[in-house]
């Protein structure tokens, strides 16, 4: 699955949300009590989820999201921070919504992995998509990434540079080019490190895809990663961000260059080792299974639960080279009304789905099957 799926609809809603928060933010931050510092109790400290709070307006929902993530037993969260929202004018920063998100996550004892992207109008040609950034804009993005690192130093320790650049759509409908992405990554890496050397920079975040050579829409993620190394990316990231979707395969299904499944991430790891990068860690920043009744890449709900438990367990027990695994997606602010709703762990009203309850039991060291 192309993970970009989840962000297509957020721009106008995010803009509206941020307007509301700007207004409220001027009066301080009285909207919810943060409460005492919490900590996650879990048997699997690598367990995480990708939250989706970019266009979540109400502070209590942001807080409730992170409370429920903690209560499920997950330690890590990936969240998306929109360059366009946080630097609406060149050099003018607005961190109000991002502060709210990060502070609530930290208050719940969670570790934030910040994904940066989404180009402001002032940094791209007129009528280009919000994911279009050519070489002329790389320095501007790097300055934003540095400003983000400076502002969140001590609260955010991991930054992902861009998302799924091996998809044409995520690359502003330019042909995916690992050398160009490496240029962007190198610029952002240097800028972040200059501000906050201890922040770990994640590169890649490639979409698992079997796109044929020469496709105008996408480039095979394995080919793309090698292309990044060929372009000199080795010194431009600290950790590889990977996306690991299982589709219809069980978590333990054998990986292969012609298969998209959970263990395809092992092939990414092989490429790292082949390029002398075996000492680097991997973080799975998207992934998981879908249980829609009719989508051909979905499994049954019980299979989704079993696969997810197995995946978290595999990372904990057998993949020492993976630090964190954040499955897509904890909750959508509003229903997508497509098969995408069947990736979530709780519904829009925070009702836990069976997978939430099973993972909660798993993280607590209980029999995750419960009485189902």
């Amino acid at each position, binding site marked *: 699955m*192309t993970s*970009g799926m989840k962000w297509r609809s*957020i721009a106008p809603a995010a803009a509206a949300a941020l307007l509301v928060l700007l207004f409220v933010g001027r009066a301080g931050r009285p909207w919810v009590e943060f409460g005492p510092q919490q900590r996650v109790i879990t048997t699997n400290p690598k367990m995480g989820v990708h939250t989706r709070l970019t266009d979540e307006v109400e502070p209590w929902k942001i807080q409730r999201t992170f409370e429920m993530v903690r209560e499920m037993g997950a330690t890590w969260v990936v969240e998306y921070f929109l360059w366009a929202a946080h630097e609406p004018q060149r050099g003018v920063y607005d961190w109000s919504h991002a502060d709210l998100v990060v502070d609530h996550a930290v208050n719940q004892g969670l570790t934030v992995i910040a994904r940066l992207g989404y180009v402001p109008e002032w940094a791209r040609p007129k009528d280009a998509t919000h994911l279009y950034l050519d070489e002329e804009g790389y320095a501007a993005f790097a300055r934003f990434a540095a400003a983000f690192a400076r502002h969140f130093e001590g609260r955010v320790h991991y930054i992902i540079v861009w998302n799924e650049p091996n998809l044409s*759509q995520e690359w502003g409908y330019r042909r995916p080019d690992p050398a160009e992405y490496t240029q962007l990554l190198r610029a952002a890496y240097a800028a972040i490190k200059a501000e906050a050397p201890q922040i770990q920079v994640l590169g890649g975040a490639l979409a698992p895809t079997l796109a044929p050579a020469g496709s105008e829409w996408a480039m095979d993620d394995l080919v793309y990663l090698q292309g990044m190394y060929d372009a000199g990316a080795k010194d431009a990231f600290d950790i590889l961000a990977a996306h690991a979707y299982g589709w219809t395969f069980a978590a333990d299904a054998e990986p292969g260059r012609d298969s998209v499944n959970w263990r395809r991430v092992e092939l990414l790891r092989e490429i790292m080792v082949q390029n002398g990068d075996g000492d680097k860690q991997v973080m799975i920043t998207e992934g998981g299974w879908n249980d829609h009744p009719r989508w*051909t890449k979905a499994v049954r709900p019980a299979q989704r639960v079993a696969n997810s438990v197995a995946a978290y367990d595999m990372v904990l027990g057998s993949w020492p080279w993976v630090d964190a695994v954040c499955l897509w997606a904890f909750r959508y602010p509003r229903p997508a009304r497509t098969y995408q709703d069947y990736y979530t762990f709780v519904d829009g*009203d925070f009702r836990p789905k069976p997978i939430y309850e099973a993972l909660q039991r798993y993280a607590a060291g209980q029999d995750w099957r419960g009485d189902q």
Partner: protein
Amino acid sequence: MLLLAAGLILFVVLGRGGTLKEIQARGVWRVGMDPSFPPFENYDPVTGGPVGLDVELAHAISEQWGIKTEIVTLGFDELIDAVAAHQVDAAISAMPILPERTEDVRFSDPYVQAGVVLAVRKGSDLAGPAGLSGQGVAVEWGSQGEAAARALRENESIAFELLPRETVTLALDALAAGEADAAIVDAISLAIYTHAGELATVGEPLVSDPYVVVVPADAPDLLKVVNDALRALESDGTLDEIRARWLRPAPS
């Protein structure tokens, strides 16, 4: 040289057109879809090409205009952006209406209602959700149907027993076999259920979810002719035929 470079950049940025005039000049309507969602679009195991309700609908619409349809296969999540950026002329792929995207794209009149419905056995006295009090309601575990059922219990204070089943088919089997008094499922799963003929929906959809054709926001002429074509296909019975062909009970 400078002009040429500027032209190339503009091409990359704006894509390949998509207004009615450009489509007519090209003689081909480029329709994006993700062939992973039967019975709307899926790869035919024999031919390898995309087949389904949406494929037939796309061809039927373009036939109204006397031009051909070219199916462009894309990931579902790419479709709206691909339309907005004129990478394709339209998307027909079991797409819902997304109010938050109306700055970028426009949504046609609906051609299928795919929401969550209340199903009962034919001849049941149940006439709607209000009658569910004290009844047993089958749902697919973790589905939108289950969420709608829980919302009914919590928000409408209708007290009924929830009977979760592992799949939507098993939920409908429970209803057909009399183990449940009703089922709350999505309308498409009900339509293609093997024993759908023994069941009926009652009341309005609990969750309305119409599927529509998506066109670029800056091509109002295209939206108009798409809606005109949908109306024409509805009037002459073509749309009914297409729906009947693809939204029918699966053989037992």
